[in-house]
């Protein structure tokens, strides 16, 4: 699980081009949107694409997506349960 979180953080940094940021700068439980990393709605679309490309996960329910994308920890947990790749 810890390895997955580090990989996921690296993928988020690359995918969203978070320049100057390292995986250790992202708190597992910090909110990704708003006060945390300060991501926006386009970033959420980019992260949906990230989940689909890297883990074969397609989230079609917006409410479910909101829960999954709350933090790195919630994303990692969802990936572990639903990954197809």
């Amino acid at each position, binding site marked *: 699980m810890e390895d997955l979180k580090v990989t996921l953080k690296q993928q988020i940094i690359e995918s*969203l*081009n*978070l*320049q100057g940021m390292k995986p250790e700068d992202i708190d597992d439980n910090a909110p990704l949107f708003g006060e945390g990393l*300060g991501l*926006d709605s*386009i970033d959420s*679309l*980019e992260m949906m*694409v990230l989940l*689909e*490309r890297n883990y074969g996960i397609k989230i079609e329910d917006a409410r479910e997506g909101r829960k999954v994308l709350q933090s790195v920890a919630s994303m990692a947990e969802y990936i572990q349960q639903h990954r197809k790749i």
Partner: protein
Amino acid sequence: MMQPVYISAASALSPQHSFGTDAPLQPVMSSDNGRLYVQDADYSKFINPVAIRRMSRMLKIGISTGMDCLRQSGIEKPDGIITGTGRGSMRDMEIFLGDMLRLKEEALNPTYFIQSTYNSINGWLALQTKCTGYNQTYVHRGHSLEMALLDAQLLLNETTDKQHYLVGSFDEFTDEYFVVKNKIGYWKQPTPHSLDLYKHNDTPGSIGGEGSAFFMVTNEKENALFSIAALQMLQDYTPAEVDATITRILEENKILLRDVDVILCGMSGDSRFDGIYKPLFNNTTVHTTVGAFKHLCGEYDTSTGFALWLAAQAFKTQQVPDAIIQKKGINPSVKTVLIVNHYILNSASVMLLRANS
């Protein structure tokens, strides 16, 4: 007849040192691979850090040029934003189309698609300035910037209120574009050094370029750098028609050719198109300085923007840079400038500019 409009500020990011410098075109930049790329600036000065991380180079170039023009003009929120581009954000489009093929149209990144649309720079400029006014992007190949300028002129001619429109252009050059257009003879073979472009004007093709230029266009004469007294576009022209258009414009504005201080020619070194500039060299007297600019910026759809920026510099400094002079004239000041430009696929434009006196 349309009333002239005024330019109160000009900003350009180009393959030359043209942005945020007190010594434009110094030193003169050149290349020997047939491509001239924009000299990058510190874009973080003009775009907020959260937004910039997602932006492509074209977006950063276009937005920074527009914001710098606004800063120079002292106008925080223009009445409208009007741009012209022949190609938009090429790199984003190439990445998006490449991904479509590679990923079989599944899981495509939205950012490249959003940014590849022609009007994304206008949108960002509107967001940054909170401008909810008129917002338009013209994609008319070699007439894109001219159409944007004409639109601003029409809008300003319809009002008696003092208004200010941010008008600009942007085009990006990519390696992929070079390869594709090379197949249909856009580029010179063998590739000349950019500064020797006109020595090879007996063969077809040119060198590629890119750039962005923004202007504050207004009906307010005070503090303006110069006015656009006439703007004419020609499609499927003959050299004789271009010559006749220049004669007509000068007559309508009661100007003799000898009183034109500077003519900026869009010669591209292409034997198929440069014939329209011959009468300008032949008919001008010792009074007029004849200059060229595509050896400095390369050929692209909206290169008129670079010429218009050069004209703004000449009006401001009352000097014509040596790097553009092809035939030096004796007129001591810069009060009248004529820009004559063409683009591949038979579009040409003529623009008469006059100092604000």
